[in-house]
């Protein structure tokens, strides 16, 4: 990447190379290992922030940014039907082979048996398969530096702050 994520000691003044400070910064949202590993089927629910999509036969999979995957029965595209929602924190990508779904769960690659979408099972977890960024997915912003001791970063929240944070990009 051409952008540089910088972590610099907080100064009384805004660093010369930092972005313009507008009173906001991004704060990491952390999840504990146990919370991250809790993957489960939930009843179909509303779309919040639709991300990537994937089709397999009559089923449409819709990622809800960072939250999981909607499974939709799309046998009639004029009348799609929500079947279930798979809670998978820090998820953005997916692919399906047979009755197995591959998904990212923060830095882990998980394999889910989705034969019964209302009762999916994690059949494999490959840890640290997918390198994560320790900065938010936006350019020219201030953010609170990631403290890995607090868990995995599963999202970023824009908050009001009185002075620039220690990290920026």
């Amino acid at each position, binding site marked *: *990447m*051409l*952008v540089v994520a910088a972590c610099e000691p907080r100064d009384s003044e805004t660093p010369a190379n930092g972005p313009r400070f507008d009173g906001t910064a991004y704060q990491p949202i952390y999840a504990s290992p146990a919370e991250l590993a809790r993957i489960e089927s939930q009843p179909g629910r*509303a*779309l*919040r*922030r*639709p*991300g*990537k*999509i*994937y*089709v*397999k*036969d*009559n*089923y*449409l*999979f*819709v990622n809800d940014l960072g939250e999981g995957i909607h*499974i*939709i*029965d*799309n046998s009639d*595209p*004029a*009348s*799609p039907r*929500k*079947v279930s929602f798979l809670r998978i924190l820090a998820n*953005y*990508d*997916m*692919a*399906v*082979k*047979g*009755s*197995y779904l*591959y998904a*990212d769960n923060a830095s882990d*690659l998980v*394999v889910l*048996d*989705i*034969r*019964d*979408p*209302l*009762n999916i099972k994690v*059949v*494999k977890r*490959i840890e640290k*398969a*997918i*390198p994560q*960024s320790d900065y938010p997915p936006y*350019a020219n912003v201030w953010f609170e530096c990631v403290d890995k001791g607090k868990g995995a970063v599963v999202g970023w929240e824009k908050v009001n702050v009185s002075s620039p944070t220690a990290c920026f990009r």
Partner: protein
Amino acid sequence: MKKAIFRFRFDFWVLAALVVLLGGCDAGFTSADMSPGAQTGTGGSMARFALAGNTLYIATKQSLDVYDVSQADSPVKIAKTDLGVGVETIFPYRNNLYIGANDGMYIFDNAQPDKPRLLTKYTHIMSCDPVVVQGNYAYVTLRTGVACRQFNSVSLLEVIDISSPSNPRLIHSTPMDSPYGLGVDGTRLFVGEGSKGLKLFDISNPAQPKLMKFRSDIPTYDVIPYRSTLIVTGEKGIFQYRYDDKDRFDFLSKIPVE
């Protein structure tokens, strides 16, 4: 009620039979058409995960990782190619992999999945935006304002002749507003313009895409053309349209963001 959703063995043989029966209908014209009639599904152009047969490709921020998924429930990593730059999207087509990275489009020969072989790095485009392929042409969108294109100022749709994959040639370039994902099917090219909408092009002549419609009411992050249905994902929800190779573009349904 329990319901087995993937009767894939049955589907496979039915599809295999159809492919045989329909013969020439399988022109390889669906976006991300990896293996018709097989067990794997189809992703959009923004995908970082892609399946081709028994191989799962993952474009991570640093590398192209290859997993063998012959045993679908137990992926085994068989290759890792460090590209040294951010990899953003992956699109398998026939025997090649088309990778959208920060510094251009990489084309790999994946005839041997455990040994992806770099055919070319097409650096005319400094971009991290997606690529789709049909026949001898790759369609790429380049969006300005994103981190990896901060030194460029024009958003573009480019058509690249890849009939010789080791020697790609730019044959067309047209300005765009804020392009994201795209999809190609036969004579139709669909380009998402993010919150600005969706553009439909006639690509009967791939070297001269002709804008047919600009629908500013359909915010589009990515699309999948699938069985004559265009599936659109964007900030307002999932929209579906029925299209054909003429003027048809009929609304089918919407799953709204709530």
